[in-house]
Every structure is written in structure tokens, then in C-alpha cells.
């Protein structure tokens, strides 16, 4: 496999884009990534587009071809990939493989979602397409509900407290205030979180990421293109993808996602590093408790200590291991198909030393994107090129 570089990045702000068509959001982000790289767009040999529910929510499919057409790319293979909330991460991995394998010298990964125009019940129903609707779905379970189930067990088993979980919310909301792309950065304290309405006990409104519109894109090239680049590239050390159980009955423990554990182990092995070598993490905090579980599953925090690390400030910028300096899904937003690519966008800025919430001396970053009931997971490890 060849060394792959991230040569260009682009992103719309995450939030509400009522007047912009879904394909236009994707084209804006992808055009920015192409222009920044300095690579001629006719050299792009493949496009992978991550999207989850454009059909049910916008009535538009064939997004990959539509976007390539709008960008003026050649008549190249264009593929939409879907893995629920991990769709963006999967698109990235396929673009990575296209370049690493030598199939092409440049590939584009684009992720997009448009959700804010739909009412809550419609959006909840669309997102529930990520569940096994012949088993778990018939009980009336929702995705916030899945994390409510996980929280009860985490609290019982490890003594994880409301204050510890609230520390995740406060941190990510504050990080989002520094990020111009973030949808809802805010200063929120434990009292305010506790006063927000219950969604799925014990999850309250502030424990849940918002619904969002947005797009993010990355242009990947073979390392031998480096001299042609107009931007400052970042190296891809590892890109791993795994499958977990598609239904709750297949999860022996609701307090961990085996897809995350396996993807992290595969990524560390591929990169030849261990968790302690990572300088910052952008992970899948779709709900506050998810960040606590993810930090444990990724091995950056000892099992059962996710809550304690959050409350002690050890996952803040300046702490032992900064988690979600971008604000994460909780604060930056979660335009589902774009999220995994947005995490990598943020990480590239960190590794270039250009992030608005910069982690000092960041040399190695990890991104983690989880889909469905843990049915799909991607973990990527990225490196500053001189590191």
C-alpha cells in the first residue's frame, strides 16, 4: 500500500442551511478542498460520498454522481456509501484505499446531510432506519434511548455520576464557542443541564447532539504528488473499519461497543503506535455518555474512568488527552453523513497548527466515527508530516 496524504480540506459551517440544496452543500465543501490542494480536478480518479438519509429527508438520491457533475470532475466512478452515522468515515476509508492501492493518484471523500427542515418525529423515524427494525425497532426504542440504556449500566457498574456526564457537555459546548463552524457552542453549567427536559432517561436535552445540515470534504493524494500541492498536507497513518452487532441482542455488554474496540486496535497496529502516543481525539459524542464510553473503548482512558477524567478536566485542551477540541457532535453538530469527514477536517487543522482551539504541539490525531447500534465503526490516525 502507498503512503496517502490529505492534500485539501473543505467544510461548510454545521447548522441550519435552509436555502441551500443538499448537493450544493456538498459541492461547496468539495470545491474548497480541491482548490486548496492545488490539484487539477481532472486528476481526481474516484469520488466517495457519505450520506445516510437524503432519500427519506430530502427526496434526493444519486448524490455522488450529482456532486461530481456539479464539480466538473471527469467521468469517474462515483459511489455513495451508507453506514448510518459512520457514513462519512467509511467514505474516507474508501477514498484512502483507492489511492493507497494505486487505483488512482487522487480521490475525493465528501460527506453531506440535510436534516433541520424536518420535524422531530420524522427525523427520529429516519434516523431509526439505522436500527434493525424487525427486532429492536418494534419496541419503540430510539437512538437516544440506546444511550439511556448504556448510561444506566455505566452508572451502576462504575458509579458514573450526573456531574461527570455533565462535565462532557460543558467541555464540548465551551470548545464549540471557539469553533466558527460549530452549530451550538455555549457556556452551560451543571445546573442548566439538569434543568433541561428529559429526552430518554437519564438523557436530557443538553446530553443530545442537535440535528444539523452541513458538508465536509477531503482530497486525498498519493505521497509522490507532494511537490504539486498548494497546501500543507497531513499523512494518513491508519484507516480501520469494523462491524459490530446490528441489534441489541448481539451486544453482550451495552456499556462498550466492540466495533470501536476492534477498530482502535486495528488502527493502532496499522500505525505502529499505541493509545498513549495520540495527542488529541475527535470522537463520536452523539450523546454525552457516548464520549465517556468511547474514550474507554479507544483505550485513551482506563475502563470505568471516563466520567472521572471528564470531571477532572483531563480531556480538555491542555489536559492529559484533549477530546473533541472542535466541540464534537454535541456542539459542532451532527449532519450525519458529513460528521466523520468533519472530524478529519478538524484534525487536519490541528496538525497544521491552524485550529481555532489548538492543541499545543499536536503531532498525532485520532478520529472515531460510529454508526447505528455500533454496527459500523471507523478509526483513523493522522500525523503531522514532519512528526
Amino acid at each position, binding site marked *: 500500500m502507498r503512503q496517502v496524504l490529505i492534500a485539501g480540506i473543505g467544510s461548510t459551517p454545521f447548522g441550519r442551511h435552509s436555502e441551500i440544496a443538499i448537493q450544493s452543500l456538498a459541492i461547496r465543501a468539495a470545491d474548497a478542498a480541491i482548490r486548496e490542494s492545488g490539484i487539477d480536478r481532472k486528476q481526481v480518479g474516484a469520488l466517495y460520498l457519505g450520506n445516510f438519509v437524503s432519500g427519506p429527508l430530502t427526496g434526493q438520491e444519486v448524490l455522488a454522481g450529482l456532486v461530481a457533475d456539479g464539480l466538473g470532475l471527469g467521468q469517474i466512478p462515483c459511489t455513495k456509501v451508507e453506514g448510518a452515522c459512520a457514513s462519512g468515515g467509511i467514505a474516507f476509508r474508501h477514498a484512502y484505499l483507492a489511492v493507497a492501492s494505486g487505483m488512482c493518484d487522487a480521490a475525493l471523500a465528501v460527506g453531506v446531510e440535510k436534516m433541520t427542515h424536518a420535524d422531530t418525529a420524522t427525523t*427520529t423515524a429516519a434516523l431509526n432506519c439505522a436500527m434493525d427494525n424487525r427486532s429492536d425497532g*418494534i419496541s*419503540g426504542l430510539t437512538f437516544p*434511548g440506546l444511550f*439511556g440504556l448504556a*448510561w444506566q449500566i455505566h452508572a451502576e457498574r462504575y458509579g458514573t455520576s450526573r456531574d461527570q456526564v455533565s462535565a462532557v457537555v460543558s467541555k464540548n459546548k465551551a470548545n464549540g464557542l471557539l469553533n466558527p463552524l460549530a452549530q451550538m457552542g455555549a457556556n452551560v453549567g451543571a445546573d442548566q443541564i439538569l434543568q433541561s427536559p428529559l429526552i430518554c*432517561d437519564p438523557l436530557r436535552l443538553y446530553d443530545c447532539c442537535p440535528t444539523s445540515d452541513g458538508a465536509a470534504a477531503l482530497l486525498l493524494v498519493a505521497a509522490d504528488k507532494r511537490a504539486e500541492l498548494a497546501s500543507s498536507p497531513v499523512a494518513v497513518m491508519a484507516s480501520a473499519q469494523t462491524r459490530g452487532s446490528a441489534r441489541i*441482542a448481539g451486544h453482550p455488554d451495552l456499556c462498550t461497543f466492540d466495533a470501536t474496540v476492534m477498530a482502535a486496535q486495528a488502527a493502532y497496529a496499522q500505525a505502529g503506535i499505541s493509545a498513549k502516543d495520540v495527542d488529541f481525539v475527535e470522537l463520536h459524542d452523539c450523546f454525552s455518555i457516548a464520549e465517556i464510553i468511547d474514550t474507554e473503548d479507544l483505550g485513551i482512558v482506563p475502563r470505568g474512568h471516563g466520567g472521572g477524567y471528564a470531571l477532572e478536566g483531563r480531556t480538555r485542551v491542555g489536559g492529559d488527552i484533549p477530546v473533541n477540541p472542535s466541540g464534537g457532535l454535541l456542539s459542532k453538530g451532527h449532519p450525519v453523513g458529513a460528521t466523520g469527514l468533519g472530524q478529519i477536517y478538524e484534525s487536519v487543522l490541528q496538525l497544521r497548527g491552524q485550529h481555532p482551539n489548538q492543541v499545543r504541539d499536536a503531532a498525532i490525531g485520532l478520529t472515531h466515527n460510529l454508526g447505528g447500534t455500533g454496527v459500523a465503526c471507523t478509526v483513523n490516525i493522522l500525523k503531522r508530516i514532519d512528526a
Partner: protein
Amino acid sequence: MHIKVLRCESCGTLDPGPRDLCAACQSDKLVLSEAPGAGALVSWTTIRRAPTRFKGQAPYVVAVVKLDAGLIITGRFSGTEENLRLDLPVEAVSEDEGAYTFAEKAS
């Protein structure tokens, strides 16, 4: 009451279904069977924002139950989540379109 499950004729594994092949041995000889509806509460949550199909029923309690027969079932809990605890003994009391509702087991 009993719960409808799938039993693999080749290896005997029980599965909450639906499933096309046995999860343990991939045999396609899965037959409809029954398992006792008694088990222990694995976890629960109260759904207050429901998807379209269940909107009129919220709030309701979703419960994950490990049946004594070894299977894990996602269903409902009858009533509120007050006094629920992990490992609470429960039993299935009703079924609606394939979804089972559990209640605390009468002692």
C-alpha cells in the same frame, strides 16, 4: 407467558429473530419455537420523544431483558421506571405486533 423465538434444528441455539441463518452455525433450519418469558432486567430507559409510529404512546419504558433461556430481548416495561433496578426479575405479560411487554415478576 411464553415468547416466540427461533430454534436452530442443527445446533439447538435459540434466537429472538427474525433471522435467516442461525447466528451460531449458519444453518437455515430455523423453526418457530417458544421460550419461557421469565428473565432479568439488563437495562431500561423512558422514551419521551418517540418516532412517528409510536408518537401517541410516549412516554413509555423500553426494557432490555435477558431471558432465563439465555436470549436478550428488547421490549417494553409496563408502567413507569420508578423502582426499577438492574437484574430485577421480570416476566413477559403481553405481546403487540411482535413486541413484548414485561412486568416485575410476581414473587
